[in-house]
């Protein structure tokens, strides 16, 4: 996570991002880049712009200004201070580069676990059936969900649902995986099983950007932590440094709310 080293390959590169909702400026000149194998955690108080940042990165919201690129694919470029987005085909290509795991899972309730995972690879990426199903079964095993293929989401616990959602995102073979508070809808026990899966992905050097309120998890798993408040990056750096030795008062005040 080095914004100064522009020549290094970055799977996600956001520069001078600005976003307002009406008069409310939610992102004020945010820059970040995520490198292969890196795990970035974004922490900070509610309303600080974390979720909006993630939604802009995943194209659910559009930037007002700034640039956004996935590796060599430029999604939004700067045109006279305004962000200009690429064509529909560029946006479609970009969506195959990343995955997003939601706070509320957002699984398709009418699809079985297997169909939730395989439908997009089959009908969006138009990949072969055998390959997709073999991969899906491997993902389910990895998520500890063997035997759940034929179940529908409402038959699963929240933790299991979130693991299906992670498998669904991974099934598209993204370069980078975004998580929007993946455990906020779960009780502590279910949180544990989801965090375990994310830890395993981190150990495999999966590139991830995680918005989270789990401070000890962020410290353990993330290479780099970004503390956001008031639409700006207040402080960032190596995980243990930001959590254990915060430099800014706002970071300290925020971290005091958590027991480490």
């Amino acid at each position: 996570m080095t914004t100064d080293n522009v020549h290094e390959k970055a799977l996600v590169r956001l520069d001078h991002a600005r976003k307002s909702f009406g008069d409310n400026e939610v992102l004020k000149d945010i820059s970040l880049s995520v490198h292969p194998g890196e795990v970035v955690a974004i922490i900070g108080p509610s309303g600080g712009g974390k979720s909006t940042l993630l939604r802009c990165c995943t194209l659910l919201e559009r930037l007002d200004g700034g640039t956004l690129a996935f590796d060599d694919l430029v999604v939004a470029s700067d045109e006279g201070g305004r962000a200009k987005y690429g064509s529909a085909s560029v946006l479609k290509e970009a969506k195959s580069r990343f995955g997003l795991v939601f706070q509320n899972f957002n699984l398709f309730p009418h699809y079985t676990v297997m169909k939730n995972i395989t439908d997009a690879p089959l009908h969006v990426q138009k990949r072969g059936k055998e390959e997709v199903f073999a991969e899906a079964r491997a993902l389910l095993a990895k998520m500890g969900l063997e035997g759940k293929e034929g179940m529908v989401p409402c038959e699963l616990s929240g933790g299991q649902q979130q693991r299906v959602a992670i498998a669904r995102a991974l099934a598209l073979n993204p370069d980078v995986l975004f998580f929007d508070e993946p455990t906020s809808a779960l009780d502590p026990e279910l949180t544990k099983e989801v965090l375990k899966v994310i830890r395993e992905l981190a150990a495999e050097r999966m590139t991830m950007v995680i918005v989270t309120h789990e401070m000890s998890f962020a410290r353990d798993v993330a290479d780099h932590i970004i503390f956001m408040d008031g639409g700006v990056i207040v402080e960032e750096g190596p995980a243990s440094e930001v959590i254990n030795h915060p430099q800014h008062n706002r970071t300290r005040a925020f971290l005091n709310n958590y027991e480490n």
Partner: protein
Amino acid sequence: MEFSTMMNLLMSGLFFTAQIFFTTLIGALPLGVVVALARMSSCKPLALVTRFYISVMRGTPLMLQLMALMFGPYYLLGLNMGNDWKYIACSVGFILNYAAYFAEIYRSGIQSIPRGQYEAAEVLGYSRGQTFMKIVLPQVVKRILPAMSNEIITLVKDTSLAFVLGIMEMFSQAKALAASQVSMVPYVIAGAIYWVLNLVIEVVLTRIEKRLNYYHD
């Protein structure tokens, strides 16, 4: 008159009743989707025109709409539409009217699907068409089925309004028989047949509802 003759006449009426019923469903079920989408369109004039159409269809009697279609061409344009026009006027009238009701039910269903479903589909790269057909529509069907059952049952009974166009559906037959035989029996039998038809529809729709109960959200 023999009972069997009476039954034969009522059955020939039932044929037209069934024809109106199925024509209306075949026309209005898909047309309702188009109307619902137009009603929710971000194109303001289109949404407004559609709203007006729905308002008129729901706000005036179907019987009046049928009469307007039947005699409008003659009174307004001086056109003589011929003998079979009543069947066309009847089909068009029923389809336009029911499409408006179906559209509002579809709209309530579509708008009840959480935003997260659209966002998940978008992030996974589904096209707008795929999102609607694969993700939204199947969930909408489950949600609107009880409301649709209501409308479909009402439609069975509304077919009797074709009486005003001189179409000899079951109610018209029953009325003619009752007058000629000076008897309540034709009405009783017709009433029983309507009820049995709706009983069958109830059973079928309940079965579909049960089949869709393999999930909840």
